[in-house]
């Protein structure tokens, strides 16, 4: 039996259901709206497991599910050495979100990362501590800034309402996921850098630890995908 992990609520779940339906596999929740059990029609030997999107990387890594749907951002942030744990089978074309670095819009002297590097240095000299960037994507942001050779900053953890940290004086900049940028604008923040730190979208992934390659391969083929 192949275990397929899918986000348990919201638009991500609905769009995942639509994606599979377009490929002849009907996924649905069993019973009431509140029950986290699923039903699969149109495919043999596949069980639907409804999970929080944030837990899907971990379940794939452990091999407790064979296939899973989650954002590339969560895979890359949560799984160190992700390429040895999961294989990306298909980008699914929805759930688009960019991980970006944003600073106050009022910083009219900050257009790019070179400006940001200088501002961080000045800030540290002036305030006696490193410029704070609020984020929950610690590994991705640190790797990106290290690659860009930005120094004089520190990351502060923010698990929600990250855009509010600047006005609350607990951070000077933020690194977070955005799709439309509306929340950023409402909080007087602007994106810097030419390209996002990461462009994420919902992705169908295969667990390497879960095994059962023949069965997973057959199901992938039914979906019109090939496993290399």
């Amino acid at each position, binding site marked *: 039996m192949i275990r397929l992990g899918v986000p348990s609520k919201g638009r991500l779940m609905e769009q995942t259901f639509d994606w599979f339906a377009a490929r002849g596999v009907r996924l649905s929740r069993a019973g009431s709206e509140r029950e986290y059990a699923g039903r699969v029609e149109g495919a043999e030997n596949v069980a639907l497991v409804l999970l929080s999107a944030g837990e899907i990387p971990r379940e794939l890594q452990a091999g407790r599910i064979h296939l899973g749907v989650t954002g590339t951002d969560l895979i890359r942030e949560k799984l160190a050495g*992700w390429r040895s744990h999961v294989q990306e089978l298909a980008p699914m074309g929805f759930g688009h979100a960019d991980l970006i670095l944003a600073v*106050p819009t*009022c910083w009219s*002297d900050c257009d790019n990362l070179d400006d940001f*590097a200088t501002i961080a240095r000045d*800030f540290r000299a002036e305030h006696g501590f490193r410029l704070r960037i609020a984020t929950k994507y610690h*590994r991705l942001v640190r790797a990106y800034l290290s690659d860009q050779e930005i*120094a004089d900053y520190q990351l502060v953890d923010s698990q929600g309402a990250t855009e509010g940290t600047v006005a609350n004086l607990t951070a*000077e900049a933020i690194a977070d996921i955005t799709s439309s940028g509306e929340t950023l604008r409402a909080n007087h923040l602007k994106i810097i850098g030419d390209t996002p730190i990461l462009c994420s979208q919902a992705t169908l992934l295969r667990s390497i630890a879960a095994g059962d390659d023949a069965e997973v391969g057959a199901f992938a083929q039914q979906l019109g995908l090939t496993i290399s």
Partner: protein
Amino acid sequence: MTKREKQAIGQQILMAFRAAGAAEVAPDLLLPAETLLDLYGEDIRARAYVTQDPIRGEMMLRPDFTVPVVQMHMENGAEPARYCYLGEVFRKQDHGETPPEHPRDNEYLQAGFELFARDADADAEVFALFHGLLAPLHLQASMGDMDLLMDAVRALPLSGARRAALLHHIWRPKRFARLLERFSTSAPPRAFAEPANWTGLRSPAEMQARIARLQADAHEAPLAPIWADRLSRLFAVSAPAPEALRQLRDLAQEIPDITDAVDRLERNLAALTSRGIDVAAIHFDASHGRHTMEYYDGMTFSFTAPGRADWPPVATGGRYDALAAVLGQAQGRSIPAVGGIIRPGLVHELGGLNLGNAA
């Protein structure tokens, strides 16, 4: 390979360090995270294990010995002082996308020696100590000198602000190159929008100060191309030490401000020769220190095992006067410092030092 065998080799090294006049110290395993984070930045958080104490706050499992040893010296050390230590350090390995074939140990022994002295001979003393101890392993010794690079940057005909920016980023090659390129071209003055809805801790005055600096900077003449060329030739010097010294002498004709640093290097090499070291076997790489931790600001050195490209150096070290000065601020003390560490685990894998059994 057992921990006991590595420990035994560590003890042999420690004995040699004590014989060289060092007092043994034993810093804590748990160190306050704040000092380390402030000194090393986010890079250290990616590498060190951070843990939480309900009373002492954020703590780190000792990622290196230098900081606690310097702090100990600043609190109660007499001068000059020599310290040695042996113990575990802890380093996370964050693999990014693909784990390496041979992951490094997350926990390994370091045996170290730190010298706090105003004596000009200190560099040679520490290098010679490591060189002599490691001689049975036939390692490749490499050396660099951050002083040389920093003196060359200070010699550039630039404004103080531009020079300070370059010096600040000397350990970050890409950022340094971008700055140098920007200073070598003339850019049209920038226009800045009037800010509305001020948010955040950075103040309007701070921004105005930077804008004023940028506007003053726009009037600066671009750096003549010959300077970037000279710097890149200096940074690229990489040869056996006597040959490197000859090349540096030639470069000092064009960049007279590095003459003092070249003289110092020559004296250092002479001091090593007088200690019986064949300096022709030392590889001098002017940029050696740019690839190490940011805190080295003078001589740097490493000893690597030939044919073990995937290994970290068996020993590393260097001069870190600025770090010692920062850590001594609270006590109002400052003293030049030079030191290094050996990894007993790697020494063991190479067959040990043949120094006889540790007591």
